[in-house]
């Protein structure tokens, strides 16, 4: 048990180091930081002084270590585009994305699991065939198409929901939340539906296939033969076992959702990390791109490690031999 924990942690650390190495390479070698940071008529001597000040004349390994040090202490440099401290920028935008992802995950679980159970229990029913059909469409429609469609229907034609932004937010210390205002809640609806759609269909299909698998196993057949109530069989036995992979997939999906938030935030102009990142790509703002990579990479590695560990804890079959 401890062996698994340790090995997973070591793995996580190695992956993080690799991600930081890529981030450092981007930061240092993509574009010329001295060129971008000196003024137009800078002389060679000024550039040399700037180079020394930034530590760019040191060996690469030393620079990498310094970079690591700065990252750990939260110094991500200054955004080329906004001339603001990147760490502050990210801290400002993070709550928006986190709230959006949270609502999307909740939606996809709250709708995906029941729908999946429904399809599994009545695999040949009309309703479940319809749901399955629409689920296929759900994973084939790109996120941005969904977003544009929803805006067209609800914001422009029906005028019931806002088409951009977060509405009014309330600051709770460092976190700014949109949950406490009516306009914030209304603004959350369309983006979260857009973001959740793909994840929802994924979970639905997963629950359906897992439950179908489990429902055909022996111990379910024995339970039925024993005359246990159908409800008990379906929910306490089958669904509980089917939920395990769902939880792991959801954990992994959170990472994917944070990434797809890039597209959703662009369509809805949601002021979160995704919009910040895509603007950084378009404007070639290397410090912000690097910081986003590090942050998101760290999030994924953490989530994946936790999911791995959870899996190992819950499923005794995995404990034997790492």
């Amino acid at each position: 048990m401890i062996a698994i924990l340790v090995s997973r942690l070591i793995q996580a650390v190695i992956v993080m180091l690799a991600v930081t190495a890529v981030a450092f390479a981007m930061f240092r070698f993509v574009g010329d930081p001295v060129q971008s940071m000196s003024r137009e008529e800078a002389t060679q001597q000024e550039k040399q002084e700037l180079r020394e000040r930034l530590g760019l004349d040191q060996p690469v390994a030393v620079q990498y270590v310094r970079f690591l040090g700065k990252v750990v202490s939260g110094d991500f440099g200054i955004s080329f585009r906004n001339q603001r401290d990147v760490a502050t920028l990210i801290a400002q935008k993070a709550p928006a994305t986190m709230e959006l992802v949270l609502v999307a995950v909740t939606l996809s679980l709250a709708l995906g699991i029941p729908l999946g159970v429904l399809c599994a229990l009545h695999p040949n029913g009309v309703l479940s065939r319809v749901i399955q059909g629409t689920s296929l469409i759900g994973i084939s429609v790109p996120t941005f198409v969904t977003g544009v469609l929803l805006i067209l229907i609800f914001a422009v034609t029906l005028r019931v929901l806002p088409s951009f932004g977060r509405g009014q937010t309330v600051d709770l210390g460092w976190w700014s939340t949109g949950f406490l205002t009516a306009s914030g809640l209304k603004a959350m609806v369309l983006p979260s539906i857009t973001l959740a759609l793909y994840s929802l269909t994924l979970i639905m299909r997963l629950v359906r296939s897992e439950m179908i698998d489990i429902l055909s196993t022996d111990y379910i057949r024995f339970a039925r033969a024993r005359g246990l109530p159908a409800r008990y069989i379906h929910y306490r036995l089958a669904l509980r076992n089917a939920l395990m992979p769902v939880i792991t997939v959801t954990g992994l999906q959170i990472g994917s959702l944070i990434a797809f938030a890039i597209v959703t935030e662009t369509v809805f102009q949601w002021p979160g990390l995704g919009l910040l990142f895509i603007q950084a790509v378009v404007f070639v703002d290397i410090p912000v791109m690097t910081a986003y990579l590090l942050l998101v990479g760290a999030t994924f590695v953490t989530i994946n490690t936790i999911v791995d560990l959870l899996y190992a804890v819950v499923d005794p079959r995995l404990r034997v031999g790492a």
Partner: protein
Amino acid sequence: MFLWPALRVGALDRRGGLRPDRQKAPEKRHRLRPQRRRINRGRYTMRNSLLSTACVLCLVASPAFAEVLRWSSQGDIVTFDPYAHTESFTSSVLHHVYEPLVRRGLDLSIEPALATSWEAVEPARWRFTLREGVTFHNGNPLTADDVVASVERLLHPDARARGNLSTVTGIEKVDDMTVDFLLNGPYPLLLNDLSGVFIMDREWMEANDALTPGNITTGVTSYASTNANGTGPFSLESYAPDVGTILKTNPDWWDTAQHNLDGIEFRPITSDATRVAALLSGELDMIAPVPLQDIDRISASSDFKVIQEPALRLIFLGFNYRDELHAMPGQPNPLKDENVRKALWHAVDLDAIQSRIMRGKSRTVGILVAPPVTGYDANIDVPLAYDPALAQQMLADAGYPDGFSTKLDCPNDRYINDEQVCVAIKAMWERIGVTVDLNTESRSTYFPKVDKGETDIYMLGWATLPAMDGFSVLRAILATRDGSSGGNNANGLSDPRLDALNTAAAVEIDEPTRVDMLTEALKIARDKAYFLPIHQQPVAWAVRSGVDVPQFADEYVRLWFAKIE
């Protein structure tokens, strides 16, 4: 999520009633009520309702028509430091918070602002008298020290906007309300330049360590980048890049307010469609600019109106005058031949661009300035006719019967429909046999590329702001690039007659003579097809009905004239 049931269970005792520590509050209430139940309630209620009625009346009686104007544009304010940038949109918003010594009025003519009078005591020394009784938003009075500190900050070698006052060599305080500007020679356009120089508070800068100016290119920031203390009709309440800026009305403004706003909320929305959707759904009161394809739809609705006119900003294409084109290394540059450039001009169907892409809202032009700008002459404002057959013939005569290759670089988020215009022009040139390698990109990578001379044919927009004078085109674009001129002439254009005109017009005090020089320069630029003018960009804003905002050809938003009903 799983903690919630636990919390709820903990708060309830076994019978379902609230735990003892939660019962204290209801006990308090119970003590008061039984004693004076009926009477108290009655009085309480009546007093309450009287109060609320009074409040409502107050709200109605007060100038409750003052409201917050919410508006949006496609770009954001890049900084609140007036000397760290040269973007006209940012300047336009900063003008609500900061003010210059002279400003432009409703008819765009120059009028006194923070300075009440001026005179040239010597040809190279101008004396300005400052307005009395002006205070900054933090209460500090405006004095000559503030003006001196501001100008010195602008002239600092690190300031991005330093070029706006390139003829000023120094500034001296004469007394508490008078300053002297020292120039490097007689210069007729000092007032035009000063209309874009904002005055900051010296004590505030010293207290906040903001005496060194910022620079958006090198990334230097200061306290002044995100905070502001000016003399303008509005004060800065908050500035969050990419999210929004909130301005509040300044009740102590020295001028009489012609607006009735309580405040202004600005939000950048890059996507055109989203911006329009926000206006139509009532979340915004005004959008500037409005995408051209939505103008008809919005103006058809009685809840909104579109105001538009041609702007000062002129869009044109520039050429590469070096020995070789980037697209054809090792071969002589065909663009150095005047006939080749004219052929390219003849090949562009400017009317189609105007009617289809700009939907008839732009004005096709033949020279590099718009009618309100000094130096304009309608006689030379005639573009070359659309004649692709002639263009092909001219190319063949010039020695390129099979055409040649060139690059075309354009921004895709700076000018109205810039990308579309370039795609169309590429198609038109390919029809006469020229191979075009098109590259469109965001302005953050586009303009540095142009400045470094890495383009063959590029698109540029020029509004001559803040000077509003044709000399700006002559000095920055037409003159050969040396220390002080040709700042935007990155591709090697060099014409001796234009350089002579540049030097002469810089110091010509006799206005008619100076204007003739400007017109001659513009005529030469047209006759030799040094640039390919396309159109005068329209400025189109959409407002909710009930919002009254004047529009200006320099595209500046001046919301201190705005009224909401």
